[in-house]
């Protein structure tokens, strides 16, 4: 590793430049050692323990802050040389054997997780490993699961959360967005509810179904994140572009804000919400309409068409605006005229293409109902109510509103 001028790209422009940088760094002592681990099977546990003992005697752990400081100053600030331990691929044995060892010897592990591997159904994981040249090395697991689960990843992510001397979160492992509409809590709840196979309303919208086991399970999961100290309700996911938050559930239209805040998307990975093989997510759309009571309908429709029609092979005004945000357009003409989805947006497109994106329920007084939902969800997450009890009260309040219209 070499110290970098902050104004330059991380990657060298040429082999020659890379060699020069390496020479410079090595001659000046400006480097950090990196050791890469892949599969860490049980039969090698003794060897790994000896290695970690040696590392502990001769090297210091490297955090993200240490690395940033090293890049900024070109000097290593700890007594012992830095050593980064990388763990690739997200193997189950990494979670079970390597991660506890790293923690035992005081080293921060850097985990590089291909979310496709973790999302892969257990029965297909060996095939996935073969197809992607992932070495498994041993057959430790009779159930065939060789990838870690999202729950195991979540457990390790607790270590991402750091606190300052006043016990206030400095780096949050996970955060929910705070919005006046309550969408920051309600939308993840919907995604979890749909993934559990539940629905918020009956087909005719006359009944709320939030007092069922699916809703209770979804809300218990969300409350569990707070209980385990992974989520702090005072941290707002909308601060993600400022850094200091590792993970969040967010819509694709936030792409431009994230890119602006973080100076690019190189450090951002997007994946489906980890909710099992039958995962689902939420989709919602905006529409433009004209008041049928307006005496300017013709002009209003003309303006609406002007804003939303693709022209001369170019996307419409609204299409270009949405694309600039990172949002998707429902207009096929706009989609044809706009560039293909980037790495950030592709998972959202995939969710739509796979029919895993369920539409936000279109129900009378939706805004009022979702405000009530957000309040109830937050009360449970804050420990002020139990999930089942909170949802029962919420279900009753919503049915009072539904009764006015259905």
């Amino acid at each position, binding site marked *: 590793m070499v110290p970098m001028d902050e104004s330059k790209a991380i990657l060298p422009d040429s082999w020659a430049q890379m060699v020069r940088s390496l020479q410079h760094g090595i001659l000046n002592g400006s480097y950090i050692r990196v050791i890469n681990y892949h599969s860490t099977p049980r039969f090698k546990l003794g060897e790994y323990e000896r290695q970690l003992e040696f590392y502990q005697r001769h090297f210091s752990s490297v955090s993200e802050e240490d690395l940033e400081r090293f890049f900024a100053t070109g000097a290593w600030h700890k007594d012992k040389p830095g050593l980064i331990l990388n763990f690739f691929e997200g193997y189950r044995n990494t979670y079970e054997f390597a991660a506890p060892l790293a923690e035992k010897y005081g080293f921060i592990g850097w985990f590089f997780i291909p979310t496709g591997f973790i999302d892969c159904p257990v029965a297909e994981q060996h095939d996935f490993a073969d197809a992607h040249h992932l070495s498994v090395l041993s057959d430790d697991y009779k159930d065939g699961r060789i990838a870690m689960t999202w729950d195991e990843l979540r457990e390790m992510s607790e270590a991402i959360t750091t606190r300052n*001397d*006043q016990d*206030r*979160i400095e780096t949050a492992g996970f955060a929910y967005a705070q919005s006046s509409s309550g969408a920051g809590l309600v939308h993840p709840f919907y995604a979890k509810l749909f993934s559990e196979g539940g629905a918020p309303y009956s087909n005719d919208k006359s009944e709320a179904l939030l007092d069922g086991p699916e809703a209770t399970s979804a809300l218990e999961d969300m409350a569990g994140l707070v209980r385990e100290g992974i989520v702090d309700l*005072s941290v707002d996911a909308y601060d993600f572009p400022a850094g200091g938050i590792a993970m969040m559930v967010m819509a694709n239209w936030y792409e431009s804000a994230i890119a602006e805040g973080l100076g690019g998307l190189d450090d951002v990975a997007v994946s489906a919400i980890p909710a099992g093989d039958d995962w689902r997510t939420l989709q919602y759309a905006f529409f433009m309409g004209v008041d049928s009571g307006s005496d300017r309908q013709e002009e209003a429709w003309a303006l609406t068409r002007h804003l939303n029609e693709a022209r001369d092979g170019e996307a419409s005004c609204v299409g270009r605006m949405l694309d600039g945000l990172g949002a998707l357009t429902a207009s096929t003409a706009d989609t044809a005229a706009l560039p293909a989805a980037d790495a950030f947006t592709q998972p959202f497109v995939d969710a739509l293409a796979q029919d895993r994106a369920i539409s936000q329920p279109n129900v009378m*007084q939706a*805004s*009022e109902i979702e*405000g009530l939902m957000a309040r109830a969800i937050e009360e449970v997450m804050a420990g002020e109510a139990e999930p089942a009890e909170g949802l029962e009260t919420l279900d009753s309040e919503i049915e009072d509103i539904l009764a006015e219209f259905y």
Partner: protein
Amino acid sequence: MSPATRAARAPGGHGAAPWVFLSPLLAFAAIFFVLPIGFSIYLAFTRWNPLGTPRWVGLRQFEYLLTRDDQFWATIVNTFVFAGAFVLIGVPVALGLAFVFGRARGKAVWRSVYYLPQLTNIVAIAYLWQFVLDDRYGAINRLLGMVGLRGPDWLTDPAMAMVSVVLVMIWYEAGKNMLVFSAALEGVDQDIYDAAEIDGAGAWRTLVSITLSIIRPAFVFVTITSFITGMGFFALILAMTEGGPRGATEVTALYAYRMAFEDLRMGRASAAALILFALIGIIAAVQFRLLRERT
């Protein structure tokens, strides 16, 4: 009543001229006060989504709010806590400031400084204080952190959030009330203080028996207007906490505002506003009567 008497009692005496001069004010009052209040009272007896037309429902909105809406009652409690704290702490603070700056050098400068919040947009004030009171990055908690203290969760703890909005409200209104008290204090004849001193009255006795007695009308005015302001003010809370966390700072005025413009329940919101208006009116009248006794 004879025509001569009636004419003599007309504003400004005889003729149409007084009414002509009053007409701009009367028109303003009719358009911006009488008509909107009248319409609001009518709406309180209807059910109206602004995208449609009002439908008469009689007393159903009042019945819902008073008998079935627990959240409405919670906001009434919050309203009294907010207004009560604002009056009980804010009025003495303003009086204290008026005393202190009444004797200070550069009192005009001090009075201007304390009045500055009144000249600042309330949303800007709310955002400024959000920055100052932020749990993690706020100036206050960072300063406390430097001396090893954790600092409270100013805006994310339900109890502290109410304390925070009350304190900011006191800070916002202190200058205005201080000016009223300052004017009243300057009207007190120094000879009275001299006479009291000669008679052996101490500072506390002088304050209670002389100063407060003489400035009683100003005290009544500030207390009642502060109470009315506190009962109906919600812009600061809307911008600072949005009524949160979890409704801890949601006052009735904010609840009615959301009901009208977020839930599109204009009729129910008007009923809530009318109930609040009645509460404020009754309590203000009682206050006025009690405080004006012995004046």
